[in-house]
């Protein structure tokens, strides 16, 4: 089974980075979260209800829908804030990439640790632009709003291809497929990572990762 990889690109102004990332990540997570599973006897389970809420962006003419879970929102906001800070501190031209990876855990025998097998990776490439005046900022508000709309449509297209999804797990396996730590919703197991591209256009951390992977492959 191959991991499905999708890449989205956005160009935003510095103060729009946070909201643009939240919009995209929450839209993906909306589709990749279910209600909490309640396992009953005889191997059946029932699923809780997922609520949704509209979020208006302050710096972009855009409204997105997210899952009604403050816990999940906090986690995503924290990750996006870290990415934004890293972008700001990098001293590069303001280019970076944040990745949302959905994975499954595969239990391995001792002494090997559990394997994380990604089945879907969303990469959002961000290019931060600087604008000179208020008029340009106003145009940027609208343009970025339209672009995000296109990204939402792209995301929905991919999701509705109904490609591979992990099988619904039994009670003992549920933590290998879903993140059961939240009390109101249950997203698929995910992790968020980011990379900042330096001015040479190469990503520092991917180079390291490639090195490590190559070493392990030997």
């Amino acid at each position: 089974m191959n991991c499905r990889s999708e890449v989205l690109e956005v160009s935003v102004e510095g103060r729009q980075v946070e909201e643009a990332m939240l919009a995209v990540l929450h839209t993906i997570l909306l589709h990749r979260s279910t209600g909490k599973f309640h396992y009953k006897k005889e191997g059946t389970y029932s699923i809780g209800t997922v609520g949704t809420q509209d979020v208006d962006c302050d710096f972009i003419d855009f409204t997105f829908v997210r899952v009604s879970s403050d816990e999940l929102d906090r986690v995503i906001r924290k990750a996006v804030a870290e990415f934004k800070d890293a972008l700001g501190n990098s001293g590069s031209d303001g280019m970076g990439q944040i990745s949302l990876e959905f994975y499954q855990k595969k239990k391995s025998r001792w002494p090997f640790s559990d394997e994380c097998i990604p089945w879907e990776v969303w990469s959002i490439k961000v290019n931060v632009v600087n604008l000179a005046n208020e008029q340009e900022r106003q145009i940027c508000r609208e343009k970025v709003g339209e672009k995000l709309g296109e990204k939402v449509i792209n995301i929905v297209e991919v999701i509705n291809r109904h490609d591979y999804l992990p099988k619904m797990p039994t009670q003992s396996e549920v933590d290998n497929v879903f993140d059961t730590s939240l009390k109101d919703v249950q997203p698929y197991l995910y992790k968020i990572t980011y990379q900042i591209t330096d001015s040479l256009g190469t990503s520092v951390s991917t180079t390291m990762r490639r090195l490590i992977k190559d070493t392990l492959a030997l």
Partner: protein
Amino acid sequence: MDSDLSSQDRKDLDKFIKFFALKTVQIIVQARLGEKISTCSSSSPTGSDWFNLAIKDIPEVTHESKKALAGQLPGIGRSMCVEISLKTSEGDSMELETWCLEMNEKCDKDIKVSYTVYNRLSLLLKSLLAITRVTPAYKLSRKQGHDYVILYRIYFGDVQLTGLGEGFQSVRVGVVGTPIGTITLSCAYRTNLALMSSRQFERTGPIMGIIIDHFVERPFTNMAHMHPCSYRTPGEDEGGTYAGIEDSQEVCTTSFSTSPPSQMVVPGKEGGVPQVPAQPNHGTAAEHCRIPSCPNGQSPQPGEMHSDVLCMCGTQVTTTSLDLPFAAFTPRANDLEVNDPMVHPPPSPAPSSPLQGSLHSNSSSHSGGQPQDDFVMVDFKPAFSKDDLLPMDLGTFYREFQNPPQLASLSIDVSAQSMAEDLDSLPEKLAIYEKNIDEFDAFVDTLQ
């Protein structure tokens, strides 16, 4: 073939499709009500939340959906469509988008109904939630209320897209294969809003209303009727619908309009001027009323929302005021400055400072053509003008007063001159201020 599908599965599938159709309509209509939607997640299943999604059921919408379905289900050749249109306060209407729930003959025999189809329908509803916020009609619906409302209509049968104008775009929300056919959900939306723009954007009432919402203090919280659209439960505000809608039985309002129709058009003013509660609730409003900003000479009634920002009288829309933040406070500042000896010292000639010059220009532009003192031509002596000079004089007069005067602060010579004058008059001014120091101290005390 249908015979491959067990009767239980068939029953389940029919039920899923029925409730999917009802929930689709609820999501679309709720997304066009003009307000943010929020529902709660619940870890314990209640049993009534179809597709494991918290989507409220507005009773009227359910009623209309069931009426349109009339006991049938969307199927092959029987599409269910939700048409969203806009209707202005003058009765013009325009279709904005059409959402279509269709089924084609492509069957997926192997798919599990109670599990896979159900989950995929749930996913499709989530996609619908996301896409309804992305089409152009969403932004329009968030601003509805004063000049226009958003309406919906549900119909069954063939999809009609001709009302969307030329160049309409289509977006596919998603597809779900079932053993009896493939369900497709899509939206076709109008891109050519030109019909609207010439009328709609002449009066930017709603947008100005929102600006005023931000910057004017409202001690009264009962301002529900000021928001662009608030949905009310049935029976609460039936008077909110436009009278013009009653002719079409199929068209339903989604926005239970903020202000009743009688307040929509203010006599003597063009366009939708947002209203405030009848009582002027603070000094600011009272002061605004004092400022003559309407060239038609009407003194603003206390009940009318009034500030130069909102006065759409004539063509003298003070765009400078529109751009200013806290524009609602500008007249008050104006008032204060007019009376304040610090800015307007008694013996100084007019205009002795760029600020004063601009104040004069500001107020004159507000009054839209009423001649101010600095526009009176001293050498204009009609009694002595010769007949053949009269047309010229009139022409000159007309030319001079045709356009608003240039701001004194924009004219470099004047500002340079007045700067020099300012500097010269500084010692005099300082002497006066020192004399009045007690007054200033008292003023500062009142601020603390």
